[in-house]
């Protein structure tokens, strides 16, 4: 259905998103340089004199760990926005919950994929069903894929928003479980406990990892702004289409009235 058009160029960009977009690109280029040219390979010498470690596979950390942090951020924001929606019932919070969940799912899937790729050379396995961190992360991602699926079921907008918000609140419980799983079930996971808190990594690696978080966050905000505006536009178009349909019905009714009045 055709709706209103404008003559000027139309996008979801603004000055803020352009700045963030460029920051992301430059930041990513610096990240690649740091990760591949500055950070040394991971090696340790055992008491027996053997050289062990992850070697260059450690460089997968700079895509896997930020992906996990961004997935937590996306799902955490969905939780907060859903809570706010249930309190204030405005479209703004519902759109925020939807947008951040979608970005959370993107990074959640990337966390699982890059984790699997990193696990193969490090633990000699692509996947381990007995590992609580892996399985709880998979459940978390599946719950939010379900959340997005529920949002596609045709329903009254308010009912859909309320239903989705409740699912997000229930699903968000798992974020805490995923995050704490390595401490709560330390004998049932291949993952180590936080090396960041224990400061068990080299300074170059720690700096590059922190830098990857910063670049990831800028990327997250850039994606969120564009995705939020896209969802906002979808709602505007729905509204425009409803108004047009109503106007057509009114015009038809007026025409019918006029014909009846004419002898």
């Amino acid at each position: 259905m055709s709706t209103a058009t404008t003559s000027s160029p139309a996008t979801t960009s603004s000055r803020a998103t352009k700045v963030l977009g460029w920051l992301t690109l430059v930041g990513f280029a610096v990240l690649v340089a740091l990760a591949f040219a500055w950070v040394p390979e991971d090696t340790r010498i055992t008491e027996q004199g053997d050289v062990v470690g992850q070697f260059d596979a450690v460089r997968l950390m700079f895509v896997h760990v930020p992906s996990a942090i961004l997935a937590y951020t996306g799902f955490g924001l969905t939780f907060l926005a859903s809570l706010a929606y249930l309190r204030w019932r405005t479209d703004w919070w519902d759109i925020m919950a939807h947008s951040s969940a979608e970005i959370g799912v993107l990074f959640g899937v990337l966390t699982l994929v890059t984790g699997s790729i990193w696990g193969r050379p490090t633990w000699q396995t692509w996947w381990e069903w007995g590992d609580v961190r892996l399985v709880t992360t998979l459940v978390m991602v599946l719950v939010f894929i379900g959340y997005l699926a529920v949002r596609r079921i045709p329903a009254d907008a308010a009912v859909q928003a309320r239903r989705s918000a409740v699912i997000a609140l229930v699903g968000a419980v798992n974020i805490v479980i995923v995050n704490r799983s390595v401490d709560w079930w330390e004998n049932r996971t291949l993952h180590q406990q936080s090396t960041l808190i224990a400061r068990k990594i080299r300074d170059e690696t720690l700096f590059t990892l922190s830098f990857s978080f910063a670049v990831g966050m800028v990327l997250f905000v850039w994606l969120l702004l564009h995705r939020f505006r896209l969802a906002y536009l979808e709602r505007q178009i729905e509204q425009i289409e409803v108004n047009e349909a109503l106007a057509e019905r009114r015009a038809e009714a007026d025409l019918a009235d006029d014909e009846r009045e004419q002898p």
Partner: protein
Amino acid sequence: MTHVGYLMAGWSISVAAVLAYASWVLLRGRSLSRRVPENRRRWMMPDD
């Protein structure tokens, strides 16, 4: 360098997935923006 295949796979899949998603969002946003009047797009700025 060791584990080149794993490194290539991990990094390229991540970049490709983010690029694909970002392109979808930008292109769909561009297409829908044309159908919404300017006064309903408060972030609107002329492309320079």
